[in-house]
């Protein structure tokens, strides 16, 4: 390939609130620049995991390079970097943005600006990106592009009157977006002759090539044979292949030079060596400083994951190992539970990340899992001056050894239409939120700011938010820090035996209520036995709630009519199948469902 003129490159991403049409626009750009014919297009090319397509979310950053012949008669290279949109993956988003020179901001012509729109725009502005607004879905009956254009100018403060008004779905006016990318997003800068300085914004594991590092070359040039070093992890290797991104495939090329976006492979075996945000440089001719902004991402939410069938423990271990190759943010270590046997304590970026890992384990690795209640990391300050970071409630030291405890707090921003402000403020109050501020974005909508304990939002806050605002509230948060709180460990006793997998940490004020609801829920889930089973919630030795599963008095099957024995046997088999999926604690059989049901106590 001949040398590429930097001025003909545009590196950009598309940012949007969920469902505002980010992936659809990406698809249309790919289709209109002729990379794929529409026949080859599978809807939403960039979301290539089944899960992503199904949920309509982007989990892994995806990148594609297309050639656009602009109206000025020149051909431009577009590197489109699709980013995950969810708060759990905020850090990945920020690194992806750092690889771009501009951002296309998609706003729904009917819904206007939402919480994630704002969060993403702020991130983009933080990275000095030029933001190109686009108003999408103008073909909807409820579309009001004029209002939304004003909203963008008023709320975000960027010029939006000549923002393309498009329908990404039908392709209407998308051409205009392509032109504005050429004219409004700057070309990259950087010196191809300087020492190598490349930003890692993602990496994936491929069983043939090893780790494939996605990077943006800021300065210098990299080609096959270049000895490279990852500046933060210190990993070193020799480059085996460099290339750029076709649609769903890697296309090797001679070299990548300053301003370009592409990939490199270097027979690295572990994605942990190539952390997102790290800087790749030339081992023999290193750059002076790494690129700014690298940080190690830490898990925020933990839970225990156990195979439903104890014999599948090695399968679960293998599956986690494989998933981790592609997901450096996933952490796990073995643990054992009296109730659930051998499993792993896993750490996640957030609840969505947890759900995604769980679903991928179940779907792609065909595992049946029992998950314990998610927990955040509590800081436990002991009387002996020691501080422990608690990820598993079972490991809480004896209360007599605890001086005090701290819990993580987040800054939350909730965007809501005015009629639901009251309901949402009530919700935040119930979840121990501290009111910070409220701003009216326009007459009908407001932005609420609260400080909320993370453990109050990891359960079902999002669901509650949606139901109390009839779907009109949007929500975003970031970690703020730790704060002291009155926390207690709530234990559940079934037939007088403590079930470790059901223990959790809760604020003292909500302990009674939570304990009562746990007992009620468990009563529904635990089948009757030949004997009576008390279900108790206790703090230390003090029982705060109790329910009883009555002894089974009668269990008679319907009459067997006309000799249809097979039907009767099927009923018995179904019953036996149900039994297999139970966990024995003492002499009580607890359905696996029961362990999961307590995660959703609010679905009344």
């Amino acid at each position: 390939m001949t040398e590429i003129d930097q001025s003909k490159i545009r590196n950009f991403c598309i940012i949007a609130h969920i469902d505002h049409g980010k992936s659809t626009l990406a698809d249309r750009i790919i289709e209109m620049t002729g990379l794929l014919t529409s026949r080859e297009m599978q809807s939403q090319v960039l979301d290539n995991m089944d899960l992503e397509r199904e949920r309509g979310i982007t989990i892994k950053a995806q990148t594609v390079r297309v050639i656009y012949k602009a109206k000025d008669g020149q051909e431009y290279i577009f590197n489109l970097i699709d980013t995950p949109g969810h708060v759990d993956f905020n850090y990945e988003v920020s690194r992806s943005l750092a690889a771009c020179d501009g951002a296309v901001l998609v706003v729904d012509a009917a819904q206007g600006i939402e919480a994630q729109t704002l969060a993403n725009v702020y991130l983009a502005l933080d990275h000095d990106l030029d933001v190109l607004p686009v108003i999408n879905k103008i073909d909807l009956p409820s579309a009001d592009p004029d209002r939304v254009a004003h909203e963008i100018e008023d709320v975000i403060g960027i010029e939006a009157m000549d923002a393309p008004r498009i329908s990404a779905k039908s392709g209407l006016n998308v051409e205009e977006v392509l032109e504005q990318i050429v004219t409004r997003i700057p070309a990259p800068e950087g010196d191809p002759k300087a020492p190598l300085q490349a930003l890692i914004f993602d990496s994936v594991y491929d069983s043939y090539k090893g780790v494939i590092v996605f990077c943006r070359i800021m300065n210098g040039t990299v080609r096959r044979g270049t000895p490279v070093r990852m500046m933060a992890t210190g990993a070193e290797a020799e480059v085996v292949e460099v290339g750029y991104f076709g649609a769903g495939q890697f296309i090797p090329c001679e070299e990548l030079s300053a301003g370009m976006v592409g990939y490199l492979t270097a027979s690295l075996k572990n994605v942990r060596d190539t952390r997102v945000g790290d800087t790749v440089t030339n081992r023999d001719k290193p750059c002076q400083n790494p690129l700014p902004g690298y940080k190690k991402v830490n898990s925020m939410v933990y839970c225990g994951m156990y195979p439903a069938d104890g014999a599948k423990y090695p399968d679960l271990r293998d599956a986690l190992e494989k998933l981790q190759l592609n997901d450096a943010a996933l952490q796990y270590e073995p643990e054992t539970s009296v109730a659930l046997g051998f499993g792993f304590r896993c750490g996640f970026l957030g609840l969505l990340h947890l759900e995604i890992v769980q679903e991928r384990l179940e779907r792609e690795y065909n595992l049946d899992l029992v998950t314990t209640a998610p927990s955040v990391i509590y800081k436990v300050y002991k009387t002996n001056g020691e501080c422990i970071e608690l990820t598993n409630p079972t490991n809480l030291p004896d209360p007599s050894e605890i001086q005090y405890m701290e819990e993580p707090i987040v800054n939350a921003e909730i965007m809501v239409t005015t009629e639901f402000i009251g309901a949402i403020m009530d919700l935040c109050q119930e979840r121990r939120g501290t009111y910070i501020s409220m701003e009216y974005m326009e007459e009908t909508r407001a932005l609420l700011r609260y400080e909320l304990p993370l453990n109050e939002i990891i359960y079902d806050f999002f669901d509650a938010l949606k139901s109390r605002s009839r779907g009109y509230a949007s929500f975003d948060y970031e970690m703020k820090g730790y704060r002291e709180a009155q926390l207690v460990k709530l234990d559940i006793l079934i037939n007088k035996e403590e079930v470790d997998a059901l223990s959790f940490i809760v604020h003292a004020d909500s302990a009674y209520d939570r304990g009562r609801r746990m007992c009620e829920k468990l009563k529904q889930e635990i089948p009757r036995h030949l004997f009576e089973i008390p279900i108790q919630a206790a703090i230390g030795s003090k029982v705060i709630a109790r329910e009883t599963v009555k002894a089974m008095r009668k269990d008679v099957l319907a009459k067997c009519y006309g000799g249809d024995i097979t039907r009767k046997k099927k009923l018995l088999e179904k019953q036996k199948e149900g039994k297999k999926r139970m966990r024995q604690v003492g002499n009580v059989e607890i359905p696996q469902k029961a362990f999961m049901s307590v995660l959703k106590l609010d679905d009344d």
Partner: protein
Amino acid sequence: MKKPISLYLHIPFCVQKCLYCDFLSFPAGEEIKDRYLQALIREIMESAGRAKDRQVVSVFLGGGTPSILTAGQTEELLGAVRESYRIKSGAEITIEANPGTVTKEKLDCYRRAGINRISFGLQSARDEELRLLGRIHTYREFLESFRLAEKAGFDNINVDLICALPMQTLESWMETLKKTAALKPAHISAYSLIIEEGTPFYDRYHQEDVLRAAGERTGTLPGEETEREMYRQTVRFLEAEGYRHYEISNYGIPGRESIHNIGYWTRREYLGFGLGAASLLRECRWKNTEDLSRYLQRFSGEAPGEEACHDVREELDRLTGEDCMEEMMFLGLRMMEGVSKKRFLRETGVPVRQVYGQVIDLLKAQKLMEEDGEFLRLTPRGIDLSNYCMGQFLL
């Protein structure tokens, strides 16, 4: 001696569907009934080859409402059976009859056709309960039918009853039972009402049924304690009246226990004919289609051949040795005498304790099962929890 077999003939028609009924039955016009009868007769005849070396010890016309057929149709049907199968002399031949649908002429015709047992679906002796169930007869009409049958010479009459009806009390149930026993029928079946999915009763009572299953109080359905008390008092009362409690829900004057019914629990072979009918032959179980038009169509020609019988089959199950062991136990435990250990050994070649030792000891420890030199049987508490007990015997 030839191997014994039973025959079941399904008549899926009724005047009106009862509100609790989930059996395969529906009202139908004369033309459909007639076509069905012809198809049924062809199936009976074409299947004869399968049972050449078997001797029929019982025939059961069930439904639906078999008594909805005309006298001529019933005679024709039984004629076909006699023509195609070797019927043992003294074989039990039963027809189910809805009170109010029999006449003297019909009953005489049943006698001529060799029917020697009638099973009346009375369900309750209280008219308000009958109305609630959606039955089409009154107690009075039952009494007339019962007397007519006796007069026609039937000395082996069964009366079907259902307890644990909505709003029923222990007293009102015992009233039904006493009125019935006073008539001295040879046999009484007393089942508990089950709220089956897909019935109007399900829509009406399912929620209560779920509460009841959790041991909670309910508004109209008798609670589980009441229901069990009804059962215990039924056993006590009917035994005092001279009936033998031989199966969980069945009672007979000694010598009048139902041969056909016992066959199901002891794994006697049977062939089922008609829509949705089940069969057991040579350790295979199968069931006919429930699709009426398919059934009619397949037996529409003059000589459909034996293939037609195969074509209407669904759910063919070849039983393994383990399946047979499971069945011996979970079916046999419905019999009050229990499962014979000797018979288990004879039919499976393995001592029962070798297969089920652990389960037997567990159930005995829970006082749900008892064992003597010859038999394994459920205790009264084991009967209350029969479903749980039987489930233990699946391998």
